[in-house]
């Protein structure tokens, strides 16, 4: 018998709670495949955030933490300082990382913590009911911005990758998307690099993954992916923001 498809060892058999068409499932799988391919499943400790992926500790088949909202990079710092030889990653959403946890992510990057952060940016708060996120686009509606985000009132969306790329302690910062198979393949490559950078102790690594939220955007899964491509990518351009020389080459 030839196995043509199986679940990565780094995912548990648990059925996820994500909405239909949500891209968290894809991103979980990419992270799990990378952990499998690098052969570090038994050396890895992951940190779930508060937000839609709060239950990620049930899905990754590695030692996991559930952190307080925004604090995953601080928790990761504590773990990594105790076990510098283990692989530590945080999995965070836009509210978690770019609003309540801004200080923690910036300082983890500034310290050059040798951790990997997967930053899932879908420009909305999903779990709590479609509120405006720090990454919500100008004009985009949200339950707390019913008339669309108005820069006069709510200011401008934050580009975290660009900010973190200015940090000397950040070794690898990339923004990817999962709106089509080609981009998914690129996303996986970036995630793998972000883990390799940690294994090589080069510094802080983050991959920002543009993601869709059909439920709170009020779109079908397919339309949501199109919306992502047409609206998010122009404001959040894809590509490697910062990388060690040998990775760039």
């Amino acid at each position, binding site marked *: 018998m030839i196995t043509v498809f199986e679940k990565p060892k780094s995912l548990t058999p648990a059925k996820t709670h994500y909405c239909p068409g949500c891209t968290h499932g894809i991103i979980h799988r990419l992270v799990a495949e990378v952990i499998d391919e690098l052969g570090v499943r038994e050396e*890895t*400790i992951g940190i779930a955030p508060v937000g839609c992926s709060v239950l990620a500790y049930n899905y990754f088949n590695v030692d996991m933490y559930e952190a307080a909202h925004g604090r995953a990079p601080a*928790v990761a710092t*504590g773990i990594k300082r105790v*076990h510098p030889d283990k692989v530590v990653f945080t999995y965070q959403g836009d509210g978690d990382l770019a609003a309540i946890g801004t*200080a*923690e992510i910036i300082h983890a990057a500034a310290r050059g913590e040798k951790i990997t952060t997967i930053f899932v940016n879908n420009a909305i708060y999903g779990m709590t009911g479609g509120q405006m996120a720090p990454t919500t686009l100008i004009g985009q509606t949200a339950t707390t911005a019913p008339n669309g985000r108005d820069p006069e009132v709510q200011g401008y969306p934050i580009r975290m990758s660009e900010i973190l790329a200015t940090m000397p302690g950040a070794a690898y910062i990339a923004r990817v998307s999962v709106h089509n198979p080609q981009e998914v393949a690129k996303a996986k490559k970036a995630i793998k690099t972000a883990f390799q950078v940690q294994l090589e102790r080069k510094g802080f690594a983050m991959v920002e993954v543009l993601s869709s939220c059909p439920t709170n955007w009020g779109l079908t899964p397919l339309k949501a992916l199109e919306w992502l491509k047409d609206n998010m990518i122009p404001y959040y351009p894809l590509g490697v923001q910062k990388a060690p020389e040998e990775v760039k080459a």
Partner: protein
Amino acid sequence: MAKVLMKGNEALGEAAIRAGCRFFFGYPITPQSELPHYLAKRLPEVGGVFLQAESEVAAINMVYGAAGAGARVMTSSSSPGVSLKMEGISYIAGAELPCVIVNMQRGGPGLGSIQPGQADYFQAVKGGGHGDYRLLVLAPASIQEMVDLMGLAFALADKYRNPVMILGDGTLGQMMEPVEFPEMLDPEKLPQKPWAAQGAKGREPNIINSLYLNPLELEDHNLKLQAKYTQMAAEETRSESYYTDDADIVLVGYGSSARVCKAAVDQARQQGIKAGLFRPITLFPFPKAEIQAACRQAKAVLTVEMSMGQLVEDVRYNLEFRVPVHFYGRAGGMVPTTRAVVSKITELVQEGGRSA
């Protein structure tokens, strides 16, 4: 080992290292700064990590990370900083992680002052953050006791998988007394923590978590926590009774206030007044049987604290309102004087120990 003269804050640092602590995460605040200063120098010498975090919030979450990863870890702060840590402390208690938190209290509320205070008693003994949880709270009154209780704090934290707070105050942190340190514990030889997240090598993953979406499971979890607190109350209460056997009037105080009370008891005894002191060393669990025994003969009890009346509530409650409990407190960084406490004692004796 010969005795050395040491500041309370520094002695706590050395005691933590002797207890096998190799990780410290904190944020600067007066009046506990000598503790991080000491550890910043000392921890790297023993292969440990000292990290100044970007905030108290980050520091306590680093503690959460390190504790979940199996290390003996501590943080320290003073009142406003400890308030900031409360979110993380609730998570640590919920996830049942062992760690030590030092609070060198100062006057409050708000930014308050940097002078000594004891107004964080409620916060310390009632949990402090959200949810039904308790810290095991130890209140040293001398530098030697700070050293001794630091070793105990780490042992109890591990025993109960619960955060332990050392509740001091600015006076205790700043003062110097001779101390003797115990032998160095080897962190490598401490008992293993099979629940810790260190990589799921040859086993199912460990999960460090305080989230229970199923209400029945969360209730069970709460019942389990409460059972721990009940066990603490049965096994861990500590206190000192000073001249209480025949005391007509028993003073109650903890930390540096208890030292003032001790001097006041000495002076009152010289005046022929049968005064005594009951000093809780564990503030949670409160030494209930012990305080009842100490106040058996008492016609009146006088609680002395650097607050507007917090410990006094637990004193009344634990004495089951059988003895009139009076209160003398200073606040805002003011410290009770021996003279003022003695005159309060004299007043009460003249009133015949009647209820105020």
